[in-house]
Structures are given as structure tokens and as C-alpha cells.
């Protein structure tokens, strides 16, 4: 905001004749020290609700969460300091381990699927086509994003029902016998991934559409003059020029997939066994079902560290592989 000062000086210099006559009429307006003073006051008043609210409901809880990870506390009795015990227990707990492993597998499969699908659809939509068709496809792929993950999981649970589900009904025409979707570990994991990607690919799709639109047409003209067609055009022009968008889309997709909760909670409650239990489900269960708030915080701290590490790693990688114009 250093730019405002010269601008004000300019305003003063611009009309030297009028200021002389105006000055007595408007003494001490915002140009002066008292003006800057009142700006500062207004700034703090305007910031107060946001800053206080964030301090209370985000910053204090972050600190509290880290502190709590070193205590054993069930809310009822007084908390006791246990050092790194919570971390040690959590790391050895088979349920926690399986849940983190599930989450990592889920993130890899779901994000690859989501980005691949979104990119393919975005490229197909952005090439020449009637405008109304393009609008229709864009709206259709965007639509699932406005629904609640809980509601989506409710109706998807019926669609994937083994006996009367619509999915198995369609598969029966291809001669595939009824798939036990929600009663086997593999089936449940597949459903959670499919339902998650179904709802979220539209977001990556929108990012890719924006990225594709920003690739200048001249680049394609130059490429086709050089004889690039079809696939080669995409591998040599689209993909490299799209890499900043791809990085952004993958960071956002990975971070949100790491926090998956609603879909597995409603679809499978983490089962059968622990096959679809995720990291956030374990936080939820150890805090609000087993009342082990210290352990829940320890798991939360580990999850946050993983999220931060992945974000940092991706931006590192980007320096090597992302092509900026």
C-alpha cells in the first residue's frame, strides 16, 4: 500500500489554486496525521471479529491440540501428563495403523482416478463444440459438488446394495453375478472410492477448464504448423502448459482426500472389519466414542504433519517438473 502516499501527494499538487481556498473550509481531513490515525482505528475495528474469532476457534485449538497430545484426558478426571506415550500407543495400535494405510491407499487411487477423469473430460469439453453442449456438460459435471456427501452416500448405499441395487442389476446384463459391494473389504473400498470420485471430480474438472482456457491459441497454431496433431498436440503442448494447474489440482485433491470422513462413515462405518476405516474416522472414534482425547489429538497432530509434508514436497517437486510460461 506504499502506492497511496505518492498518489495523495499528486492530489495535493494537482490543484494548488483550489487548496488555498478550500483549506479553511475543511480543516484536518484525512490527508493529515489524524486521518491516518482514524484509518488505523477503523482497520482494527474491522479486523476484530475475524481475528478474535480465528484466535479463539482456530489458533488456540491448534496449540491446545498439540499440548493435549501429551496428556491423558477423558474429560471427567483431571488430565495427566504422559509425555510421548500417546504417540507411542497410537503408532503401535493396529486399528490406527490400518486406518492410516487405508487412507494412503485411498488417496493414491482416488486422486489418480479423479485427476485422470477430470483432465480427460476437460480436454474433451474445451475443444470445438456447440456452446450449449459445453454449458450442459460443465453444469452436469459440476452438479454433484453442490450435494451433501452424507446424502450422496445415503442413496449410493441403496444403489450398491447386493440384492436389489441398481448397479448389480445393470451388471447382471453383462453376465456378472451379484457383487457383494458393501459386505466385503475390497467391495467396500471400491464403493467408497467410486462415491468419493463421483462427487469430487467436478472440482478438478473446473480447475482444468480454467487452465486450458488460459493456454493461448497461438501455441496450438504454432504446434499444428509444426505438424503436431491429435495426441501429439496434447502430449507436447497441453500437458506441459497445463502443469501449474495440474499441480494445484493435485495438491487440493490430495489434501481433501486425506480428510475423507463422510462417505466411509455413512456408507460402511469403516467396515467390514477395519477395511474402510480412515484417519479422520479414528480421530472421531477415539475422541468421541472412547473419550481418549489425548490419543485423538496425537493422531490429529500426525495427520497434520503428513498434510504439511505432502504440501511442502509437492511445491518442491513443482520447481523441477512444472513448466511455467
Amino acid at each position, binding site marked *: 500500500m506504499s502506492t497511496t502516499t505518492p498518489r495523495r501527494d499528486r492530489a495535493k499538487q494537482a490543484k494548488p489554486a483550489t487548496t488555498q481556498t478550500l483549506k479553511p473550509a475543511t480543516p484536518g481531513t484525512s490527508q493529515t496525521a489524524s486521518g491516518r490515525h482514524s484509518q488505523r482505528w477503523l482497520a482494527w*475495528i474491522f479486523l476484530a471479529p*475475524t481475528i478474535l474469532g480465528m484466535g479463539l476457534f482456530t489458533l488456540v485449538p*491448534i496449540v491446545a491440540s498439540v499440548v493435549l497430545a501429551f496428556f491423558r484426558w477423558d474429560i471427567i478426571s483431571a488430565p495427566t501428563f504422559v509425555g510421548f506415550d500417546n504417540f507411542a500407543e497410537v503408532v503401535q495400535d493396529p486399528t490406527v495403523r490400518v486406518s492410516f494405510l487405508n487412507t494412503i491407499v485411498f488417496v493414491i487411487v482416488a486422486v489418480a482416478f479423479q485427476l485422470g477423469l477430470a483432465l480427460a473430460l476437460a480436454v*474433451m469439453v474445451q475443444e470445438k463444440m456447440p456452446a450449449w453442449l459445453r454449458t450442459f*456438460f460443465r453444469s452436469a459435471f459440476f*452438479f454433484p459438488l453442490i450435494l*451433501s456427501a452424507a446424502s450422496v452416500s445415503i442413496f*449410493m448405499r441403496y444403489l450398491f446394495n447386493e440384492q436389489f441395487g441398481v448397479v448389480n442389476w445393470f451388471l447382471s446384463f453383462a453376465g456378472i453375478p451379484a457383487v457383494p459391494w458393501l459386505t466385503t473389504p475390497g467391495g467396500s473400498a471400491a464403493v467408497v472410492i467410486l462415491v468419493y470420485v463421483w462427487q469430487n471430480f467436478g472440482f478438478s474438472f473446473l480447475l482444468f477448464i480454467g487452465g486450458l482456457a*488460459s493456454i493461448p491459441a497461438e501455441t496450438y497454431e504454432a504446434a499444428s504448423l509444426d505438424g503436431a496433431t491429435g495426441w501429439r498436440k496434447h502430449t507436447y503442448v497441453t500437458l506441459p502448459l497445463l502443469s501449474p494447474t495440474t499441480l494445484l489440482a493435485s495438491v487440493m485433491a490430495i489434501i481433501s482426500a486425506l480428510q475423507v470422513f463422510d462417505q466411509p462413515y455413512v456408507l460402511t462405518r469403516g467396515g467390514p472389519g477395519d477395511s474402510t476405516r480412515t484417519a479422520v474416522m479414528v480421530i472421531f472414534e477415539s475422541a468421541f466414542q472412547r473419550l481418549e482425547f489425548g490419543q485423538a489429538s496425537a493422531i490429529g497432530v500426525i495427520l497434520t504433519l503428513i498434510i504439511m509434508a505432502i504440501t511442502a514436497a509437492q511445491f518442491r517437486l513443482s520447481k523441477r517438473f512444472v513448466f511455467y510460461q
Partner: protein
Amino acid sequence: MTTTTERVSTRTPAVPARTRRKPNWNLVLRVVLLMIAAVLTLGPVMWTLSTSLRSPSESFKLPPSFFPWNPDFTSYTQVFKQLDIVILVLNSALVTGLIAVGQMVTAAMAGYAFANLKFRGRGALFSIVLATMMVPVQVTIVPVFMLIRGMGLSDTLLALILPAIPTAFGTFLMRQYFLGLPADLAEAASIDGASPWRTFRSVYAPLAVPGMAIVGILAFNFHWNEFFRPLIMTISERNFTLPLGLVSLQGNLGTGSISVVLAGVVLSMIPALVVFIFGQRALQDGLTAGSGK
């Protein structure tokens, strides 16, 4: 986003000099593939709608229904009997509405301060606000739960509303929005002798309404659909929000009356649908905001 569409339209004539000569098989193939994707995307929603309009005893029978040819509204009357859906809708509306209004007001104020007002520590403070966006709700939920309990607000709607009002993303959006408005306006206002407050009130606040609408629509869409926080913060059913109520209804009814549960799901979709129809552009712009730079 308006600039995006302009760029699209200027680009399109340039690409397909090649495709125009041959019969356009490229376009046909693409449209067929995209249609399959669109059917798979919209199909489950069509099934939900038309199954909610079958009678409860018919609802699980195959073949499935994808178009409500003979709508039967029994499930809709049933869902009102099975579930205190009026309370759920009121709770959801109250929670979502107050969060949206609260976010619009506080984000506009904070965004304006970060964009147009001078004070010491502005850059550092803004970085802190941005950094809080990286912390997932699930990680802070335990201390927030304790805090709410300490404030005597556990199992109230305020427990859902208050922590959701301060918004880092909304503040970021509004700051960008104010930075996009011409700075000459402030200059002109201060030459006319307007105080910083007058400048905001009479010049910038009216211009900020479209930006605030984006913040409001995003907040509405997110919190209307929210499941995790209500699951933790509310205990008694009279404080449930819609998604929570519907999930517990599905649990209570098992697989007996699909159509009743689906009627509830369809009812819960209506406000989101209204937002989709009237605010799709704003939603898309808001969701992808920040990806530009």
C-alpha cells in the same frame, strides 16, 4: 470467469482447421464419451428423484425407475411422520443462514481492512489468516469441542454457528475483490473530506455486494451440506441438522422403505438446487478462486 469464456470463444476457431474438412468424427466421439460421463453423473440423482416418487412398497423393486412417470407422493407424507423434518429444516436454515450472513459481514470488513486500510503488521497478519486455511477442521475439533463445552454451549445450534463465522477463505476472497476495485474512488472520497468509515460505508460497501454474494453462496453450500461438525456438536435430535437427521433415518428404517429416506434426501437437495440454478457462476468462481495466481 467472464474472461475465461471470452478466451474460449476466441480460441475455438483457431484449433480445428483440420477437423472442418473431414466429417467431424472427433466431435461425435467426444460428445458420445461426454454423454456417457454425464449419464453416470446425473443418473444416480435421477434415480433418487424418481424412486422417491414411487410408493414405499414398490420402491426397491427392479427394474429401477429413472423417470417419475406415475408420481406417488406417499413417501413425502411418510417422511414428515417418520422424522421431525420441519425441525431439521428450520435448524439447517438457521445455522446455515446465520453462518452465511456472519461470514459475509466479517469477511467484507476484514477484507476491506487488508485491502484498503493502512496499519502496522498488515502483511504478517494476513499471512497468519491465510495459514489457518491449511489446518483441517478435524484436527482442531477436539479443542473446539472442549471450548464450546466450557462456554456452556454444547448441544446448541450456537455451537455450530459461532466457530464457523470467522472465515479465512472469505477474507481472502473479499480482499481480492476490494483490490480489484479502482483505488481512485478512495482518493476522490478523501479529497471530498470523507472519513475512512464514510469512504467504506458510502463508496466501497455498495460495490462489494457481488463479492459478498460469492462468500455467502459458498458458505451456504458448504454448511447446508455439512456433516462432521453437527455429528460431534449436537447430541439431541431436536438440534440435528438435515444431513444428520437423514443419516439417522436411514439407520432406523434399514432397507425397508427406501423411498421415504430418498424423499427426505430430495427435500434436502432443494435449497442446493436453487443455489445451483441461480448462483452456479458465483459458486464456480468462488470455488476456483485463488487458483488464478
